[in-house]
């Protein structure tokens, strides 16, 4: 991987934009086979003290890199702007097309945040969708950038302890499309539940579910609530507030379209990886459990004739880097089931 680098202290957005343009022009003159990726702008607002962690996470997204990443790091006491720009590319052999990715890191101070839009706007690649990720809060800056972004990336699980992740997502969903990493952590579970009940002869079981038990990392309550919200919204169950007493699992009873009661239980489970640990769905004469295992999910099914089946559903763990990469990729897609799942999840909160 080759890199062209430009940096300037006490700079301005116009100077950054001019330098970007000039670097691209120069690179194209030197090698016309290189072309800038033109898929997505990613704007990140991060606390300067956590720059290393955020940079590492962005590195680990692998091939799902945004075309132009604009990382605004907020440093206490800073009054001027410093910027570093890195243009990275692989020169493909034989005149084949090589792709350029751009990363602009701008150091800003708290006083810049109310008008961060005037700093970011000139630096965006024109005509591309823009995604905003602000993992350390900075709500004022988010508010000022919202009119210029198409997608907000967030992680409801990040705020589990203060229980603001899901409400914050709902608030932002009214202003932009939201990609929630907590939701993406539930994707393999949603896919597998959908697949397990897809054969027509399994559909009656889906129509008669009577209990759903979701096990989750202690800090991934929002992921669990989103999965419960998804099942509830897809299957037409009437949401109701769950209760939690003295550290017991969160539980409650929802009413199905045909008036049955469906018991819901969200249970913290000790595991290293964030996200879900397992889910069990039960119906009158059977049950199916999916649990996180090595190399995929472990499935366990109890059949009506009392037989018990165990098998492995293959799939490599995406890791947190993979989840973030998936979040970037999802900026270009639209999942209409997140909103209903989120709103139902909010109604399940104690």
């Amino acid at each position, binding site marked *: 991987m080759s890199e062209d680098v430009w940096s300037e202290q006490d700079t301005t957005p116009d100077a950054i934009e001019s330098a970007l343009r000039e670097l691209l022009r120069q690179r194209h003159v030197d090698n016309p086979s290189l072309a*800038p990726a033109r898929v997505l702008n990613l704007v990140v607002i991060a606390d300067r003290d956590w720059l290393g962690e955020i940079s590492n996470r962005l590195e680990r997204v692998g091939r799902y890199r945004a075309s132009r990443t604009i990382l605004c790091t907020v440093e206490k006491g800073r009054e001027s702007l410093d910027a570093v720009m890195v243009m990275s590319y692989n020169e493909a052999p034989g005149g084949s097309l090589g792709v350029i990715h751009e990363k602009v890191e701008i150091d800003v101070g708290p006083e810049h945040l109310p008008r961060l839009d005037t700093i970011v706007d000139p630096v965006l690649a024109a005509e591309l969708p823009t995604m905003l990720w602000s993992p350390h809060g900075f709500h004022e800056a988010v508010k000022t950038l919202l009119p210029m972004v198409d997608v907000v990336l967030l992680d409801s699980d990040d705020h589990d302890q203060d229980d603001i992740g899901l409400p914050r997502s709902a608030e932002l969903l009214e202003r932009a499309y939201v990609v929630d990493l907590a939701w993406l952590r539930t994707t393999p579970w949603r896919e597998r539940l959908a697949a397990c009940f897809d054969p027509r002869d399994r559909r009656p079981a*889906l129509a008669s579910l009577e209990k759903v038990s979701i096990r989750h990392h202690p800090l991934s309550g929002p992921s669990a609530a989103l999965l419960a919200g998804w099942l509830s919204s897809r299957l037409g169950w009437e949401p109701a507030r769950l209760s939690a007493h003295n550290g017991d699992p969160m539980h409650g009873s929802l009413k199905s379209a*045909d008036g049955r009661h469906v018991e819901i239980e969200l249970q913290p489970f000790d595991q290293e990886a964030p996200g879900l640990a397992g889910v069990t769905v039960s119906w009158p004469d059977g049950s199916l459990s999916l649990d996180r295992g090595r190399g995929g999910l472990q499935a366990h099914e109890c059949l009506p004739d009392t037989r018990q089946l165990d*098998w492995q559903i293959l*799939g490599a763990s995406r890791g947190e880097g993979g989840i973030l990469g998936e979040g970037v990729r999802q900026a270009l897609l639209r999942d209409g089931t997140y909103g209903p799942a989120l709103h139902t999840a909010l109604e399940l909160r104690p």
Partner: protein
Amino acid sequence: MSAAIEQLERDNPLVEGLERLPVHATTLVIFGATGDLAHRKLLPALYNLAHEGALPERFELVGVARREKEDEDFADAVKQSIERFSRQKPDPNVLEGLLKDIRYVSGTFDDDNVYSELGRVLGEFDERAGHPMNRVFYLSTAPDFFPVIAGKVGDAGLTKCEKADVRIVIEKPFGSDLASARKLNAQLLEAFHESQIFRIDHYLGKETVQNLMALRFANTLFEPVWNRNFVDSVQITAAEDIGIEGRAGYYDHAGALRDLVQNHMLQLLALLTMEPPASFEANRVRDEKVKVLESIVPPSVEEVASMAVRGQYGSGEVSGKHVPGYREEENVPADSRTETFAALRLAVSNWRWAGVPIYLRTGKRLARKATEIVVTLKPVPHMAFQSTGSVGVQQNQIILMVQPDEGVSVSVGAKIPGARMRIRPVHMEFHYGTSFVSQSPEAYERLILDAMRGDATLFTRNDEIEALWGIIDPVLTAWDQDTSSDVPQYEPGSQGPQDANTLLAPGQTWRRL
């Protein structure tokens, strides 16, 4: 039962919003599991699907081949294939899971014992799953075995399974001419219903080939000009810069026409020229492809000389190195008449395309590796600009690049900066590499998954196969009958034989490789 419950039992509400559609529990049986295709493509593709969690929730793999092996030895061989050819670094846990219950059945494909043992293994998997699993028989064998295996699978009662779907996937070549394709279709249809047969053309699994349909039918920009009123000519090229690379055994019997034109290139032609289907349901798309293929009037044997050109690469220097000519390649007969280059001029005789020449060109050891379609539009009706001092106004071209740089390029005339009104063509380009973050899956991954899901959109139907051969058959016959003249030689690393230019209408040229 309430309407909501009835609806729920009819449609799976959990599927909405998911990118990956469910695939029902499946046992995949690969005949020819120790062969090259399985080793390089199929088994690595299966691993990649497993890695991404795309395989069915229950998946079992059975290999069938002649060589004596134990299950464990087969698992070892599969592991090696995956470690060597997978596009993703294998995750040891996923790999272990994939290989854990793998089975191997050894024997010749005409041996009844192979099929009774296979039936026993399939039954065992069904028993373990608690219900019958779908079955996909993948024939990755020499084509001579296709009817043998299909017949034996039928005789063993394995083509039907209550409460499960059974499918058969056939690799190309599907016949060697129209008569053999018809015979093979008839043999397969004795054992399987057409809806169970998935004839694979891996080209159709390529993203850029599927994008052809998106380009045409998801944009209003192109469709208004996609007809005889605006299109001057179409060129489809599949050029390779390498020779036969040790594949003389196959290639000398096939030749360029059977290897690429009859399948891949005519498929591209069909997608390019077909009418918009009412929906993208498999049979609606294939109906339209068949309709347009049947609109291509095959030449008579006598007409072939004026609409088809063949050639063979000779020896020479490429990139400063000596390369052998085709007849000097290992295991190629010194008097071989097999063509390594073929160019055709075809016409689609329907309302949309009447009078538009469609040129196809394929060859080995040409100047550059490129697969592309060039749609050249007619010249502007009135030239208001002077051409002095520039190359002048050129015909617009829409170039669909299939490989190596996948994308679309549109050439338009633009003013050269300066005081005078001078025009030259510039390109507006879209490249997959710069416009998407996702990596295209391997064609085989997409197609195996589609076969397991029962989606036949990207597979070739029996009438389509026969229509494809119907176009090529007279050319094969004419070239077989013509033993009087030698097959023209062309220089390696060149544009192909000069004779190919004789196919073009006056004023037209082949796009330079």
